[in-house]
């Protein structure tokens, strides 16, 4: 399942992240990597950014990128 279809406050393990080098590097540096445990904090309306909790911090990710992040429960 991709992250954009996830539900709020449920812990997910990241199965894969986009391979595009720019996006990949940025996600990695913010602690969003394969195997990381994250949870969705908020969805913004009209396919706006998705706010996730990764570690002790929060990160906003655009909907388009979230569609390319695969997660498992």
């Amino acid at each position, binding site marked *: 399942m991709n992250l954009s279809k996830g539900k709020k406050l449920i812990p997910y393990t990241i199965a894969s992240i*986009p*391979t*595009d080098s*720019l*996006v990949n*590097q*940025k*996600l*990695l*540096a*913010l*602690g969003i*990597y394969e*195997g*990381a445990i994250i949870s969705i*904090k*908020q*969805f*913004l*309306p*009209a*396919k*706006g*950014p998705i*706010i996730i909790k*990764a*570690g*002790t*911090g*929060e*990160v*906003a*990710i*655009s909907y*388009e*990128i979230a569609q*390319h992040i695969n997660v498992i429960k």
Partner: protein
Amino acid sequence: MEKVLLTGNPNVGKSTIFSQLTGINTITSNYPGTTVSYTKGKMTAIKRPVGCESVCGGNCGLDGLKHDSRRHRRKGRQRSCQTDSQLITYEVIDVPGAYRLDPTAKAEKIAASMVSDGDIIVHVVDATNLERNLFLTLQLLEYEKPMIIALNMWDEAKHKGITIDINKLSNCLGVPIIATNGLSGEGTYALVSEISNAKKPINKNFSKDTWKEIGKIISSVQNLEHRHHTFSERIQDISIHPVFGPITAVLTLYLIFRIVLYFGELLVGLMGNLFETFYSPLMYKLSEWLSGSPFFHSMLVGNITQGGIEYEAAMGALTTGVFMTIGIVLPYIFVFYIVLGLLEDIGYLPRIAIIFDKLMHRVGIHGYSIIPMFLALGCNVPGVMAIRNLESRRERFITAVIMCTTIPCMAQSAVMLHAVGSNGPIYIFVVIAALISVWLLLGSVLGFFVKGEKTALIMEIPPYRKPTVKVQFKRLGMRVVSFLKEAVPYVIIGIVIVNIAIYTGVLDKIADFTAPVISKILGLPKEAIGSFLIGIVRKDAAVVLLESYSLSPWQMVTAITALILYFPCLATFIILLKELHFKDTMKAILIMSTVTLITGFIMNILPETNATPYLFIVFSILFAVVISGLLQKAKDRRYKI
């Protein structure tokens, strides 16, 4: 001189620690990307003599400046460290924040390129977000340079229920770690002492899988205690709520506008009284003194009468020039920077970026671009500099063009509000509607046509923090001084140049030459070219000049809209050249000129009736929304990864 680099992720408090170490004030705030260029300073510390640690256990001279020589004497040593130690001066460099050393954003590239040149690295780590920060730490360790970790925001981490075993972490990484609080200065002395005795890290042979390594470290050194949501966290949740978030953002923007307008006007009135009481007598004396030389009188004092000085119409460098900058613009700038400072420190700006991300997508860029635009409302120069945090050339170009074209700085806004508002508040809204429409239309067109990589939002959200009065005052003082240093001389020089051009008849010749554009397209008197020429130097001075022509309310609106759109001020132009380079800057200028002529022409051909302002506001915004929607559909370029 050895170079000490202050490195770390964005928004971990590097600039605050830099200020503590060097005593140099820098602009700090609570969002990633405040420092886009490096700042240098000097710091002096005492280097302990060899063998000192074996005597006192390394506890002596923690501040690097004082030394407990009694302890050494107790141990039977004759000499004190104060006589044996060396006083060393270091060059401290505040490096822009970076998440990694294989960066994409321009500001991160600066950071990465500097690391190899440094002698000692002070790596500032956010204790509230240790896991994410360690990614850069492990990359920095690969450089094998003497390194110290400043575990900053230590108190905040404790407050959040995060406990970190510093000794264990230090053993894991092979570098000394000092707990610090940049705002209070806690830990600074210990940090200085460590810098003066910095050694290369102990090689730990970390595996290639960085995150696996980080996971191991975190599980052994960090402990999280569960605690309930605090009041501040509840407010944070509201500000990104799908319904209340956008409402809060719109209300906040409206409130900022009202606060700046209300308190700005209040201070303008106060300044007017002060000028009349204290400055006018001086100007009368100067006028009397210069009565023998009409040239200098018209340059410096202008037209004044004994009944009271009309500062806005006098057109003297020391009357109108000084009054407009200090009496009119400064009050608005002062209020705006107080409000901006509060928003920066609280950490609200990144939330605005998230809320408006979808809207920004319509103009082909993502939400973070709203932060440079917000800064540009104060002054376009820091706004243009902040585009360095954007990743692609396309994003930087679009943001810079729509920002420099449609976002007036506070100095401009202040005189604009004053000049247009005197005909009625509706005319202020006409200018705002024109700018919003151009912003949306221009952005949509650029988003459609400008080629290049389309990036999407991935942004760290800082927690809300309580603003401190000390930081607020320090930053406000720096911004006000910087405004006065830049504005007063430029406005005075600008007014003198225009006066000379009028006096010598040069302005008449230029006005005759440009009359077809100024009169036929924009519908303004041909002399208005003087305003546009002076606007290249300072736009606020240009508006002042406009007030000296007798323009109708609609002509004033057209002229001011055109003045905002046509060209950035000289200072912004120079920074644009630096950030976009020559070719893209020229393209930007061409776009601005075209937009000005089109907008000015449309406004010029509208009949001047009582209903015109209202109809213009409604139809211009409607037109922009419809066209931008159509372009969005036509674009239909789905994001590809």
